[in-house]
Each structure stands twice: as C-alpha cells, then as structure tokens.
C-alpha cells in the first residue's frame, strides 16, 4: 500500500508538484499520466528517495518513508523499492549479469542465493542468453529488459518506472507493455509507472492519476476516466480518439444551434467520436465542416473535419470517397458539459 498525503515539492521557489494525495492498495499498478513537465518524474523520484519532499508525507504500508513536517527522509536503499530509469542507467563497465548481480552484492546475499536470483530475474525477462555481454553490445529493447531484471532481482515491494517505453519503437512498446504487466503480476509488488502516453495508462493501470501543472486532475480507475472525466483537461487527454469538446454559448452549440440538453450552459459540450454521426444532407441537428483527414481503424473510419476552426472527429461506416463538405449530426445530449475553465458542470 502506498499513501501520499499533501505531497509537495518546490525547486528554489518554483512549485513542481503540489498537494498530491492518493492511496493505492498493495499490488496495485498506479500510473501517473500527464503531459511533459507536469511533475510526474518529481513524484517518482520522491517515492524513490532521490528527491526530498518540501511538503507532505509518503508512506509505504505502515512505514513513513518521507515526512516533510518532521524533515524525515528514509535512504533510497532502505525503502525496498526499485527504479527503472528513462535512460535505463545500466552500468556500462559491467556485463548484463554483473549489472543484475551488483545490487544483490550490495545487499550482502550469499553467492548461491545471488546466482539463483540473478538467473531467475534474467530468465523472467528473457535476457539470460545475453549474460556475458556489455550494455554497449545489446539493443535498446534488450537494455530495457536488463534494466527491469536488475530492478526486480532484489525483490523490491515497490516497482518504479519512469517512462520506460518512451525510447522503444512502436512494436516493441506494445510487446513490452504485456511483458511489464506479466512481471508486475509475477512479483506481486506495487508498481508506480510514469508516462505521457494515455494508451499505456489505459492498458496497464489499475489506478490512474491524471496530472496537470503539478496537481492531480483526476484519480480513478481507467474506465472511469473514459466514462466520467472530471475536467475538460482529462476529456481531451484520454481516449482513442479523444472525445470532441465542442464550444457552447448560452445553451447553443457553436453559439447558434440552441439545444435544451445544454441547459443554458456556456463552455464546452463533450461529444464522443462514437456518438457523432455523418449525415448525408444538412439538417436541424447537423453542422458543416471541411474534411481534414480520414483514418481507417478496426474496419471503420475516423473522419475528422474542421468546423469553425475546431477539429471534430467521428467514427463512421462511411464508404467510398469523402464528400467535399461534411455534415456531422449531434447526439441528443452531450456526454458531459464543462465550464470555460474546464470544470465539470454535469
């Protein structure tokens, strides 16, 4: 179990992270999701003990590992946590086996025990065949696997990952996602995983904290982020494709198509791509757009158009050529309404 309460961090006056509170149970897979610079790495490094919080507390189970009010910080090495760096941080002067073995040596394990654990970790990640090679002699994907093997060999209770897949190519990334989930299940440890890729978050997480500007926008299981986004920021960030946020003005779509379902609101109405349809001809509930792009996806087509300067995407069964003007048909009601600041109204 990991608990963060009112966690904050400033760097010489600049607030990187503020007022982060959340709890995940033992064995959870927590993903910190957000755009670059929102403070994800800072939180992860505070969990690792490499950075000291300037406010709040971190608990692993019943143990406080950092408490800013008491000025207490537990050493990284005593936290029973492992970290996979974005750069992998493999020690270039040690072989693959040496990299996996070194943390076990530091832990003063016996020779037999070390051999068994290193072998087990390398087997689990499929890098046992590379044991005698140096990091400079293996591919990026293999380095990634070695970094993970090195982390799990001492059997930490907390696994920390900083955008571990961001340097891999697309196919490898999909493969490693599965691999990581397998490792997580096999170790039973609690994982905290940092990424800016919402697909990774949606496929791997049991809990997701969507972050923006150093704060949590929403903390929920992945499905809830889709079904019930707490803010316009989350709605725009999550989903493939993400939902459309169409401007509304005093209860009218685009300020000119009044709709009682908008209840007089001003801000944005959220319309999911699958709720938006293409009409053959203009009608009372349609708006016009110039076609921008068409992406085939899972046997259907994502059609994106530009309506009053706004990109709008619908999932369609459109066949044949794309007409020179599109007509999108709005659903009976928006899935959510946000005020101009992005707060959820209904």
């Amino acid at each position, binding site marked *: 179990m990991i608990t963060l309460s009112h966690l904050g961090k400033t760097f010489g006056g600049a607030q990187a992270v503020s007022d982060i509170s959340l709890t995940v149970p033992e064995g959870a897979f927590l993903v910190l999701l957000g755009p670059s610079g929102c403070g994800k*790495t800072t939180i992860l490094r505070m969990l*690792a*003990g*490499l950075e000291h919080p300037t406010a709040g507390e971190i608990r692993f189970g019943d143990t406080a590992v950092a408490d800013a009010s008491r000025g207490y910080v537990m*050493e*990284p*090495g*005593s936290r029973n*946590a*492992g*970290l996979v*760096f*974005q*750069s*992998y*941080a*493999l*020690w*270039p*002067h*040690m072989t693959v086996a040496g990299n996996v073995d*070194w*943390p076990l040596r*530091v*832990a003063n394990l016996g020779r037999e025990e070390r051999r068994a654990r290193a072998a087990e970790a390398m087997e689990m990640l499929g890098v046992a065949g590379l044991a005698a*090679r*140096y*990091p*400079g*002699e293996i591919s*990026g994907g293999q*380095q990634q696997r070695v970094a993970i093997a*090195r982390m799990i060999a*001492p059997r930490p209770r907390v696994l920390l990952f900083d955008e571990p897949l*961001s*340097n891999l190519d697309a196919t490898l990334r999909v493969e490693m996602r599965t691999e990581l989930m397998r490792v997580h299940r096999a170790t039973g440890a609690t994982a905290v995983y940092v990424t800016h890729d919402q697909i990774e978050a949606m496929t791997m997480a049991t809990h997701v904290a969507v972050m923006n500007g150093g704060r949590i926008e929403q903390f929920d299981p992945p499905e809830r982020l889709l079904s019930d986004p707490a803010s316009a920021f989350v709605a725009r960030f999550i989903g493939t494709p993400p939902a459309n946020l169409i401007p509304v003005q005093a209860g009218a779509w685009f300020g000119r198509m009044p709709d009682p379902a908008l209840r007089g609101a001003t801000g944005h109405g959220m319309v999911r791509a699958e709720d938006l349809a293409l009409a053959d001809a203009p009608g009372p509930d349609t708006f016009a757009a110039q076609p921008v792009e068409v992406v085939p996806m899972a046997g259907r087509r994502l059609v994106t158009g530009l309506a009053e300067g706004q990109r709008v995407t619908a999932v369609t069964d459109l066949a044949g050529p794309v007409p020179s003007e599109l007509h999108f048909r709005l659903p009976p009601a928006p899935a959510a309404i946000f005020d101009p600041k992005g707060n959820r109204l209904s």
Partner: protein
Amino acid sequence: MTARAGLRARLPAGLGLNLGVLALLALLVAAPLMTILMQTLDPERIGAWSDVLASPLSRNLFWLPALNTMALGLGVAAGCVLIGGFLAWLVVMTDMPFRGLVGFLATLPFMIPSFATALAWGTVFRNGRVGGGGGLLEGMGIAVPDALAWGMTPTMIVLIAHYYALGFTVIAAALATVNGDLVEAAQMTGASRRRVLFGIVLPVVMPALIAGGSLCFAGAVSNFAAPALLGLPVRMQTLSTRLFGMIEIGQVERGYVLAILLIGLSAVFLALGNRLLAGRRSFATISGKGGRARRFALGRARGPLTALALLICLVTTILPILLLIAASLAPMASSLFSGWTLHFWIGEADPAFARGQAGIFNNPQLLRALTLTVAIGAVVAFLANVIGILVAVALTRHRLRGISEAVSQLSFLPMLLPGIAFGAAYIALYGAPIGPLPALYGTSVLLALALTAAMLPFAVQTGRATVAQISGDIDEAARLTGAGFFRRIGAITLPLASRGLLASLLLCFVNVISDLAIVVLLYTPTTPLLSVLSYRYASDGFHQFANAVTLVILSISTLAAGLATLLRGRNRPWLSS
C-alpha cells in the same frame, strides 16, 4: 564523351581523391619514417644499434636516458590525471562557483609553450650551481637545493603544469557524458558512498583517465624543451635530449636509432592505453534519454576547493607570464623587481651590459625569425588544413575499402611521433638530394613540410568535425545539379565550414609558432625561428633575452588563440548545467 562516362562508371567514386591523399600522406608521413628505419638497417650502419643497445656506451647513450624518460612520462601522466581529473570533477560534477572561469583557465596552459613555463621556473628557482645568476628565491636569501633547481623534479613539475590541461580537456569531456542516472541507480541499491565511488563512478570514468594519462605520457616523453632547459645543465638526459645531442655532434645513425626507440616507447604506451580503452567497456553513455544533470554539493569544502582550483589555474597560466615579463626587464633574476630596463628588448649593443648583446629588437636575427615564424605558421596552417579537409572528405564521403584505412592511420600517425624524432626522420629523408631534387636541409621548405605533417592529426580531426557538420544530403543536393567535386567544395563545403575552419587555422598557427621539438633539429642560421632563438639565448645563459623572445611568441599566439576562441564560440559542453 561516352568513353569517359563508361570509364567513370567502372571506377568507384572518389578513387582519385583517395589515391591523391594517400600519395600525399605517403610522402609526408610514411616516407620519412621508412627512410630513418632503412638507414639504420643499412649493413654499414647497422652497428649503431649495438652501440646504442649493447656496448660500454649504451648505459649513458640509451639506458639511463630511457629510464629518465620513463620516470618522467609516468610521473607526468600521474600528476596530470590527478590535477586535470580533480579540476574536471570540480567543473563538471560539482556546484563550485566560478566553474566557467576555472574551465577556461584550465585549458590555457597547453597554449603556453613548455619552454615558457620552464624559463619561468628558472627565474624563481635557478641557483648558482651551473653558473649564471641565481633566481628570485636565491635573491631573497633562500638557498635552493639542486633537486629543486635542476633535473628531474623541476622538469616533471613544469611538464605537469603544461600537460594537465590536456588531461583536463579529455577527462572533462568524458565526465560530461557520464549520466547522473548511473550514480542514482547505484544509490537505489543502498550502496554506501564509498561503494558507489569505487564500484561505479571510478570504473565508469576510468577510460577517460587512461586516455588522458596516456596522452600526457606521450607528450612528456617526447617533450624536448623542459628537459633541455632544466635537465641538460646538470647532465640529466632523456631520450629526446640525447637524440638531439647525437645529431648535433654528427653521430647521425645513433641519433636515428634513438629516434626509433623513442617512437617505439611512446607507441607502446599509447597502444597500451588504447588497448585498455578498446571495445565494449566504453564509457560513452548508452541509449536512452538522460535525466537532468544533478550537481554534487560541496558543502563546507566549497570555499577551500574553489580557492585551490583557482590557485592551480593562476599558478600555471598567469603567474609564469608575469614572471617572464618581470624577468625580461630585470638585469638580475635574483632581484626581479628592481633596476628594470628595456635594454633586453630594444637596447643597443653595449660591451658593458649583458656581455655586449643588443636588445632583441636590435638583433637582425630576431626580425628575420619573426617574419619567418609567422610566414611558416601561416603557410603550414593553410597547407595542413587543406589536406585535413581533403582527407576528411575522402574519409567521410568516399570511403573505399583498404585505402580509407591506410589514409586514416597515416593521418593520425604523427600524433604518436615525438616531435624531435619526426625532425630526425625529415633530415634522414630530405636532408640529402633525392635524384634530381636538391637537398632541402637548411631551407624553410623542409621546416614547412615537417610541421605540416606534424599538424595533420589535428587538422584532419577538425576537418572531419567540420565536414560532418555539413550533412551528406546538402552535398548530394549540389551533386544532383551536376556540380563537380571542387565546385562543390568551393561553393558548399567551404562557406558552411568557414567558421570552424578559420578557428582550426588559427589553432594550427599557434601550435606551429610555439613548437620547438620539431624545428630544433631542422633549423639552420639561415632559417631562424623564434622558438629556436629563445632556446639558443637560454642555453647560452642570456635568460632575459630568451624571456623577451618567448613573450613575443606568447603575444602572437595569445592573439591568434583569442581570435579562435571568439570564432568557435563557447564550445565547452561540460559547462552547461
């Protein structure tokens, strides 16, 4: 037309260029070396080998100088790695203030010729043992022991003060690539600070330390000026001073044998270093995006360490120059700051003063030396860089199996060759007439050729960097328009590379005008050079004049180096936070 096109299609692109640069390198680098080797293997002269290596003479001829050379090389390498590494660590990895200043100052000593530092040492520590006046310390009534005035210790200190800049540059560049994540990954395991230092940090930077150390070793064993000025007066010989002495007294074959042995010694050590460096344990960071660099907080040691770093830098850069200035004005080094006169600079010959020597600007030799030095510096810088660019283009754009390897090896070979051995090789080949060609000995052509060859590694390296900056696509786009090779070089490559090239020209120029080791054997009274003039003055005991000439060299090279720094911009990646 069709025949020509057909011929072109069958020959690999760039064959002509490759063969051309190969021939040039063969003439400049390979031929002199082959000659020196062949001459000592000549049945009539092969006896020189046994004279040097196994005869009653060989103890003094080879073994003692070799021992001195080794001791000097190892001592200097250790000192440079220690001092250069210490400064590099402070500048790259810690939160020391004035990092930029220290990083800049620490690269300067290499710009100051080692004979300048050696002369400056003399002004302070010289004692009366070998005649001539004492230095500043003796003037203050402090007796300077011989060990500090002459021989191994001062030579080693002066060379460390000169070469640590090389160690600093190599180590700082390497440290800058060491990813801070490596250290944090080790901290995560719970390892102690000590264990992280010895288990991770030191092994990771070891290749850089070895690279820096072996370069300093090679520099120290081939240095001529420092042991000649500080060691010869008390008969401490190194291989380079021995080699110089043999050729001066006409025992040329023995000199050649010593040259080959000296090349062998420095090659063995550079090869050892390379071998330790080779292959997979490279310190280069492996893939992955790096984290933000995190600086090590010095805490309470910050003040003292900063002071120490600044002290080291000042003592090795500004202090020697100030000492030289004072010593070029003071009639007696023992009272450095009194009785200052401009006589040594501009005085008329006066039998009552300085044994009748006129000030350097009244010495007709000086003006000739000044013009010749600057002219040769400019010509050599130009030639070396033209060849450097051609070699770089051949190596990066038109690699050909077999030829390219030879070109690359030959162009870097002079790096392994001690300057004085290089000079000897040039005498061996071009000192006598070759067929219808006249002997070049005593001409400035010989000086220019030898110096050009010696500058090649540097010129090729900067040439490669400049050519690499210009992506192949740009050149290929020009090729598609049908522009020929030289047209493309003139219209595309040169304009784009001009800044880097100009900087490289200036640095080459600086290296040439402050060289002593190569030219000391090739120089004749008809081709005087400033560095040789300074050395002659010093070995004849006219220290003030030597200092003044050295200051002339220093002013010219400071101007050029300053200009080069301006052109290059602040290209020191390890200073970015």
